[in-house]
C-alpha cells in the first residue's frame, strides 16, 4: 500500500494540495499539518483528494480542524478550503455534513473557477 503523499503547488494565488493514498489515524495528523502550512499565507487552498481511496473520521477531523485554524488565523475571515474528493471521501463528507463549511467540487478546474467567479 502506497504511503500517504501530499504535494503542494502554488499557482495564481491558490495553493493546491494533492493528496494520494489512504488517510487514517496513522497519517491524519500529517494531513492536518500539511493543510495548516498551506493555509499559512492566507491564499485559498484547493485540496485534491481524488486519489484518496480511503478516509476515516480522523482524516475528516483533520480537514475540519484545519478549517477552524483558517477561521482563527485571519481575523475571522476564513481562508477558503475547497475540496475535490474521490467517491469514498465524498461519501464520508456527505455523511458528516461538512459540505456547508468545506465546499466540494468535482475537479480542480471547477474549484478554481469557483474562486475566480466569487
Amino acid at each position: 500500500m502506497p504511503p500517504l503523499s501530499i504535494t503542494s503547488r502554488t499557482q495564481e494565488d491558490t495553493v493546491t494540495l494533492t493528496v494520494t493514498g489512504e488517510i487514517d489515524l496513522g497519517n491524519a495528523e500529517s494531513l492536518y499539518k500539511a493543510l495548516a502550512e498551506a493555509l499559512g499565507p492566507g491564499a485559498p487552498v484547493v485540496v485534491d483528494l481524488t486519489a484518496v481511496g480511503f478516509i476515516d473520521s480522523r482524516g475528516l477531523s483533520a480537514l475540519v480542524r484545519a478549517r477552524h485554524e483558517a477561521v482563527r488565523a485571519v481575523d475571522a475571515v476564513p481562508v477558503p478550503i475547497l475540496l475535490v474528493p474521490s467517491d469514498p471521501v465524498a461519501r464520508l463528507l456527505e455523511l458528516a455534513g461538512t459540505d456547508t463549511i468545506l465546499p466540494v467540487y468535482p475537479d480542480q478546474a471547477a474549484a478554481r473557477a469557483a474562486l475566480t467567479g466569487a
Partner: protein
Amino acid sequence: MPPTPDAAAGRGRPRPAGGLDPFAADGEIGRDLAAVDWAATPLGPTAGWPQSLRTAVSILLSSRFPMWLAWGPELTFFCNAAYRRDTLGRKYPWALGRPAGEVWAEIWADIGPRIDTVLSTAESTWDEALLLFLERSGYPEETYHTFSYSPLRDEDGAVVGMLCVVSEDTVRVIGERRMATLRDLGSDPSVVRTEQETLDFAGRQLGRNLRDLPFTLTYLFEEGGGARLAQASGIAAGHPAAPAAIAEDGAADAVWPAQALHRGETALLELRGELIGELPRGDWSQPPAQALVLPLLRQGGTPYGFLVAALNRYRPLDEAYRGFVELTAGHLAAGMAIARSYAMQQRRAEELAELDRAKTTFFSNISHEFRTPLTLIMGPLEELRGRLAGADARTRAELEAVHRNGIRLGKLVNTLLDFARIEAGRMRASYQPVDLSAVTAELAGVFRSAVERAGLGFEVDCPALAEPVHVDRDMWEKVVLNLLSNALKFTFEGSIRVAVRAGPGEAVVTVADTGIGVPESESPLLFERFHRIENARSRSNEGSGIGLALVKELVELHGGTIAAASRENVGTTFTVRLPLGDAHLPQDALVAAGGAAAISATAEPFIQEASRWLPTDPSDDQDAAGGPGDEAQRVPTGGQQAPPGADRTLPAKILVADDNADMRAYLTRLLRGAGHDVAVVNDGVYALEAARAQAPDLIVSDVMMPRLNGLDLVAALREDARTSSIPVLLLSARAGQEDSIEGFEAGADDYLVKPFSAAELLARVRANVELVRLRTHHLRWRTALVDSLQEAFFVCDQDGAVVEINAAFTDILGYGPEGLPYPAPQPWWPKAELDRAAHERLSEAFSNLLEQDRGMITVPVVHREGHRLWISAAFNQVQDPDTGRRVIVGTCRDVTAERYAIQRESAVAALSLRLSGAASLDEAMNGALEVLRSLWGAEQVLAAVFADGAAPALTATGPDADWDRLSDSRQAALNALREGPLLAPATHAAGPGGVGVALEHPRGPMALWLDIGNRRRFTDQDLTLLSLLAGHLAQGLARAHQIDRERETALALQRAILGPSRLPAGFAVRYEPAARPLEVGGDWYDTVALSGGRIGIVVGDCVGRGLEAATVMGQLRSACRALLLQDPRPDQVLLALDHFAEGVSGAMCTTVFCGVLDPVAGRLAYSSAGHLPGILALPDGTTQLLDRALALPLAVRPGAPRPCEERDLPARSTLLLYTDGLVERRRVVLTDGIARAAEVMAQQRGAALEDLAAQLMNRLAPADGYEDDVALLLYRQPAPLAITFTAEAGQLAPVRGALRGWLEKCDVPVELVQKVLVAVGEACTNAIEHGRRRADDTVRLRAEALVDQINVTVVDAGQWKAPVPPVGSRRRGHGLMVMRAMMDDVAITSSAAGTTVAMRTRIR
C-alpha cells in the same frame, strides 16, 4: 402455385423421336410426353436419351400400377396413366417433364428427404399409409399413400433417378377409422346406462376421432321447449359454439337451428360468424369450416335432440362421410332409446314395489283392527258360556257356534298377520335348539284324539335324533298343526303318519296320509297362496287356501324345504327338511335352549276347527265344542279354565287404564268379579297421576292410548321412585314377539295380547300380585345368602355411598355394618395429606366405579387399625329391582401380599432398567436414586460414598448435594449406617421419618438414606424391598463402574486416533458414533494443512461400527494424511490409499471423499471413492451435488485410475460433506435423505456455520436417534478473517488491506466494501487509541461472511464509552456515528476485560 394445364399444354412441341419411341407403350400418356419440349430439360431431346432411361420410361408406361419416375439432375418427372388417374389429378399434363420438386412442391418436405436418401444410398424406401395433403382437387386433401422409392441406374451403374410405385390408401384408412368409431360407439351395449352415462360414453368414443369429427355437440330437447347441451366432444364447455341451452323460439341469433331439427330436418351449416368464435381444430391445423347438424330420431315421436358434427375440412362431404355422421347420430339415438326405456322400466318396478308395500301395510292394519272387536266378542262370550251352562240346548249350540267362529276368525287374522309380517320382513323368530322328535310328537299328540275319532289310524314315529334342531317353536307349531289339519281334512279312510328321521345334515319330518291326494298336475300349486283344489272331496268347505302357503314360508324361514308327493286316491306325503346346526340362521335370532315349553294356545283353533269336521256325537257335543272335558283341551292354554274362586292373595288394588269404554267396563267387571278392588282411568296421564296419588298393587293398561301410551306410562312409572316398583300388565292388540319384547324392554312386568280370555287375564293378574308379595320374602333370603359369601360384598348407591356390606367385608377392612351407610369418601380411603398418590389413585378408581357398567379395580386402602392394604374389587352396575335405581354391587378381596410381590418385581425391573441404560457410574447413581425416590414418594434420597481419606462424596436427588452442608446429626447417622451391616435397612437410622441402608459402592462403602417424612409408615414389606433394591444397586454400580473404565480406555484410544481437533478457519464438524459409550466409530473426517495455504479435506466411512471399525478408520485416516502431504492430488491420494487398504483387514469397501481446497481461489479439487456426494449450498438458495469424479470404494479394484474433478466454490457458498449415517434411514430411499439434507442446507444457508452444523444434526436425526455413525464437515467460502495486531496506528493500513482482500473474496458490492472498511477502520482506530494505554495492547479483528450478511467484531483490552463520550473525546463519538451510518447494526460491550464492537451489515 402450379401453372394451369393449358399453359403447360401450349409449351410442348411435338418432335420426331429418334430410334425406338420411348413413349410407345401408352398411346395417351405417350402423346402428352412426346409433346414435352425435352430439349429444354436437362435430359435433352429424346433421341439422345440413354437406353436405361428409355427402358425405365417404357416399363413405367406399360405398367397398370400407379407409378412415377424422376430422372436426371433435376429429377425430371414422368408418370403413367394409373398415377395420373389416382393421384396427379389436375396437375396433368402440366407436370410432365417438370422437376419433381416443382410438381410435388406441397409435399416436398415429406418426400424430398426420402428421394435424397434413395439417390445417395441407392437403397429403396417403403412408406405405408403416409398422410399427405395433396392439392390435386383444388384444395388440400387428406390422403394416405403407400409407396416405395427405388433407385434407377444408368448404363454405368450410377444412380441417376428413382422410380416411385405408389398406391393410394385414402379410402381404406379413412374407412377403417370411421368404422372404428362406429364400432366403439356400439361396444358393450349390454351395460345398461342412464341417459347421461350413455351420452358420456358416446362422447368419449367420439372424442377419440378428432379427424372425422373435429368436435361434436349433442343437444337434447327439453320438455318445456328449447334444448340443452348434454354432451360435447373436442370442444370445451362454455365455448360460444356450445351454448348450454338453446331457447325454444329458435331466435335468429341462435347458434344452432333447433327448431328445424325439432322437425327432424338435417342441415349443413357453414361455420363462421361472430357467434361461433374461434373453433377448436380437432386433429388439424385449421378449424372446421362446415358442420352437419342432424336430429336424433325417435321412433314414432319427435327427435330426442340433435347432433352437431363439425366436419373435416380436408375431406369432401361425400356419401360415405355423410353416411358415417348419420350412423353416429343413429347410434346416439338408439342409446337414448335404450337408456330411457330402462329408466321407465325401473320406475315401473319401483311403483309395483310401492304397491306391494301398500298392500302389506293394509293387511297388517286391517288385521290389527280385527283384534279389538274380536276380544270384545270372545271375552263376554266366554262369560256367557259359563253363565249359560245350564241353558237350553239351542242357546248353547248357538253360543258354541259363535265361539267356534270367533276362534276361527282369530286364527285367520293371525295367519294373515303372519303373512304380512313375513312379507314386510318383520317376522321375528327366535330359533332355539329343541328335541325335534319330542316337540313334533307332542304336537301330533294334540291331534290324536281328533284323528282317532275320525276313524283313522294315527302313527307317530318319532325316535329321538342325535342332535337338537334349531326351530322357532311358535312357527314349528304352525307348520305341524297345519300339515296335520290338512291331512285330517282330506283323509277319509286309512291312516295318518307322522315321522321324524335324521338325514345327511338335516332332520326330515314327514306327514303322510292315505287321503284323496291331488292330480300330479296340481302338486306344484299346493303351496301357492289362496290356491284351493277345486271339487276335491274334503271334510269341510272351509279354508282360506293359505295354510300350506304359510307352512312353506315358515319352513323357508328355517332355511328348510318342503315338498309334496301326491297321487290321486292314494295319498299325499309332505316332507319337510330342516338343516342341522345354526349356521344357516341369522345369528341374532338364536336363543339358548329353553325349557320344555308347553304347546301354546296356537293349537286350540286347529283342534277346534278339526273337531267340527268330525261326525257329531250328541252325547259329547259339549266336549266336541271344546268344553273342559275335551281331550283336545288338555293342553294348558288356560283358555277354558273357569276363573279361580277364592284366592289367598285377594283382594288386590288394581288400576285399569284403557281408552275404550267397552274394554274398561269389561275389565272392571272381570276383575271385580274376581274380588279385586278396581280403579279406572281412560288414559296414561290419568293412570300416572292415580298411581302417584296412591300406589296400586297392579296396573293393567292398554298399550294404545291417547296422550300417554302404555309403553310411555311404564317408562314414566319406572322413573319415579314412588311408582317404580308397581307391576304393570300391558294389553295390546298387536300380537307378535317383537311387540312384547318392546313391552318388556319398557319395563312392563307382563304382556297380554288381545284377544285374551278372561281366565288368562285373571291368571296373569294373580301371578303378578303374588310376585309382589313374594318379594319381601325373597329379601330375607338374599341377606342370608350375601352374608355367607366368602368374599367381601358391598352395595353402593348411585352417589357412591356404601349401603350394604357383609361379614367378610368387615373382616378385611375392620369396618362393620353398624357404621352404614358409609358415604364417600369412606373412612378407609388413604388420607390425601398422608399419601397423596394413593389417595388420588383411589379417587380415580372410585369415579370409574361410578361411571362404568362393570369393572375390576385394585386400590390401596387403610384398615380401621391404620395399616395399609391393597384390595381388588370387581363391580357391576345393576338396576335395583325394587326401586329401579342404579346401584353398584361388588365383591372384593385382600391382595396386599400379591400386590407387594408385584411391586417388588416392578421396582427391581425399573431399577435394573435404569442401571443398564446408564453410560457412566454417576449416571447410574443419579438414575438409581431417582427410581428409589419416586418408588417411595420420598422427599429426598441421599447417598454418601466413603472413599479412602477424602470427605464423603454425596449424591442426592434434590439440591444440597454437599456433605458439609448436611446437619451434624445426619452426618453422624450416615456414618453410623456405613459402620453397620450391609444391606440391612434401618428405620430412623438417619433421624425420624427416614430409612437407610448400607451397600458397597465401587469407590468405597456407601450409605443410602431415604427421607420419607412423617406421612406414612415404612412397613416391613418396604424394608424387604429396600434391602432387595440395595443389593441390585450394588451390583448395578459395579457394572457401571466397569463400563466407566472401558469408556475411559476407549476415549484414550479415540484421542489417539482422531488426533488434535484443531480445525482451520471456516470449517465446522460434527461427529457422532453409533456405538455408545464409545466415542469413535468407523466414520471420520479430517483436514490437513497443505502447502500454499491449501487444505486437504477427507471424509470417510469404514464398513461396520464400534471399536473394530474405529481401528481400521484410524489406520486409513493416518495413511490418508500422509498421502495428502506427499502428493496433494485427490485422485492420486485415493489411488495410493487403494493399495494401502488392500493390506488392512476390514478396510475394503471403505468409502472416502478426498478434496484439496484452495481457500484463496475458492476452488476444490476432489475425488470420491464410492462416497456420498457433497452438497454445495449457493447464496441464491439453490444446492448442487458434488457427484462427479466418483469411482469404486477403496481396495475394490486397486490400480484402476481414479477421476478428479475441480469445482469453484462461489463466495458465501457452503459445502457439506458427510457420511451415510446422516441421511440413510430404513425404508427411505437414500436420495430422499440427501435431498432432505440439501433442503436443510438451502434453508439454513444464512446461519452461522456452527448453527448450521447443529441444525443439520438436529433436523436429520431420526426420531430415536442416529442408527449409524455420523460424521459431517462444513466449509463456507471464504473462511472467516481473523487478525490479531498490536495497537499501533501503523497497523491500520495492513489490516485494512487484509480486510479489503477478504471482502473481495466475499463478492460483496464495491460500495459495501467501502462502508465496511470505514466502519471497521473506526473501530480499530478506537481500539488502538485505548489498547495503547493498557498492558495488553493487542486488538483482535474477526470478520465472518454469512450468506447475506457480514459480521465483524473488533476486540481490544481497553474500555471506551458509548454512545455519549465524555467531553474531549468527541472524535470517538464521531467514530461511533460513522460506524452506525455504515453498518446495519453496531453493538458495543465494555467490561473490565476490554471492549468488543460487534458490527453487522446485510449484503445488498
